[in-house]
């Protein structure tokens, strides 16, 4: 078997374009998912039964089905229902953002549950209004406890974003598959694609592990 490494150099700019798309999509979906995830976690831990039921069904459904079917559903079914053509980018963004929302909300919920009830008593004793409680007492503590989980969910989302290639979005995975079938050099091209994902994903997981260790030490104090 003869390898031709020159093919990688030739197509590297195309792969980098794909990587940029992957990173852009991941960044948008992670940001949206984090914000919505916090809101959903508040809905799930609030007192309203209706909000609790709706948010629980939403979270369980997005956690209980494959991301691939979520993407397909948003791509093929949403336009039919809404009567508008939203295109691959928007449907992929919606699907991955909602998936991220469901995952992040679970991380936030676990963090909210870990805040001791004496904090709530203290807030009540101090007579703090609800908005102050939420923004200055609950949010900072929930956030710091949820950070390790949220980071590892974000890394997973970066990996899951490869699925958007099945909708024809020109991300790293799509560029890789297209080049590999056009050049009939899957070994070189697909291995390079894997290596690029690894080169981004591995440092991120190392950072997650580091942050986790630091935060655990801080909470223990």
């Amino acid at each position, binding site marked *: 078997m003869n390898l031709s490494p020159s093919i990688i150099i030739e197509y590297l700019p195309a792969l980098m374009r794909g990587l940029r798309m992957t990173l852009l999509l991941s960044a948008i979906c992670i940001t949206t998912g984090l914000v919505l995830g916090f809101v959903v976690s508040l809905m799930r831990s609030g007192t309203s039964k209706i909000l609790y039921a709706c948010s629980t069904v939403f979270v369980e*459904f997005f956690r209980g*089905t494959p991301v*691939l*079917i*979520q993407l397909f559903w948003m791509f*093929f079914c949403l336009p039919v229902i809404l009567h508008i053509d939203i295109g691959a980018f928007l449907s992929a963004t919606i699907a991955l953002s909602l998936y991220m929302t469901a995952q992040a909300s679970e991380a936030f919920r676990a963090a909210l549950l870990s805040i001791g009830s004496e904090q709530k008593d203290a807030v009540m004793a101090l007579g703090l209004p609800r908005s102050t409680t939420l923004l200055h007492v609950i949010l900072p503590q929930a956030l710091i406890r949820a950070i390790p989980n949220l980071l590892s969910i974000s890394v997973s989302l970066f*990996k899951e974003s490869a699925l958007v290639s099945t909708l024809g979005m020109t991300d790293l995975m799509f560029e890789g598959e297209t080049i590999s079938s056009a050049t009939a050099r899957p070994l070189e091209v697909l291995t390079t694609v894997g290596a690029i994902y690894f080169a981004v994903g591995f440092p991120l997981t190392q950072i997650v592990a580091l942050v986790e260790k630091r935060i655990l030490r801080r909470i223990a104090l």
Partner: protein
Amino acid sequence: MSDYHFDFFYVVHGFARLMQGLVISLELTATAIGIGTFSGFILALATSSPNRLLSVPTRLFVETFRCTPALIQIVWFFYCFPMLANVFWSPFTMGAIALTLNLTAFNSEAYRAAIQSVPSAHRDASVALGLSKWTQALHVVFPQALRFASPVLVSNAIGLFQQSSLVAVVSVEDLMYQGKILAVETYRPIEAFTTVAVIYFALSFPISQLAARVERHYARLLA
């Protein structure tokens, strides 16, 4: 909502086909879980071995599978493994290998943490009893590590069932694949994809609930 008319006739008609797909999905999942539960433990022992010749390559293996998308792993095995090894196995086999290796890598991380929580007194006891290294690993460490790691192992297994849908991309005729064919052939994407999603959900959700309940039960027992 719009004036869309739901028509489940074709989905009902094609239900047998979806069930055939589901069998393939479950076979893939069962293979990966059956092997991955044990091989993950062996791999965890290897990654924490003091012998660097053993620990460095195995760590590299684990990190490779953890830090790349499952999709590229499956596509890579489908296209590249046959070229490298000069073998031509069915897409199902290739999918099963990729998914099993993926689960093995993730399970080994769960076991690594669990092995550390086996009390060191048990090791001392094994040494005092003169147990061989293998007996100690299989009969003292493994059963306890399995129990400590079980919450993560179960959630990995549920995750794998969902990831198994990716083999549809390399035309393994699993549930996802059959759903896609049904949607395209009947021009009924909403009915077909929603049904497929509901089937995946109907299997994942009860298992995750049951696992959470069992976990809480044990947490109370230990406390």
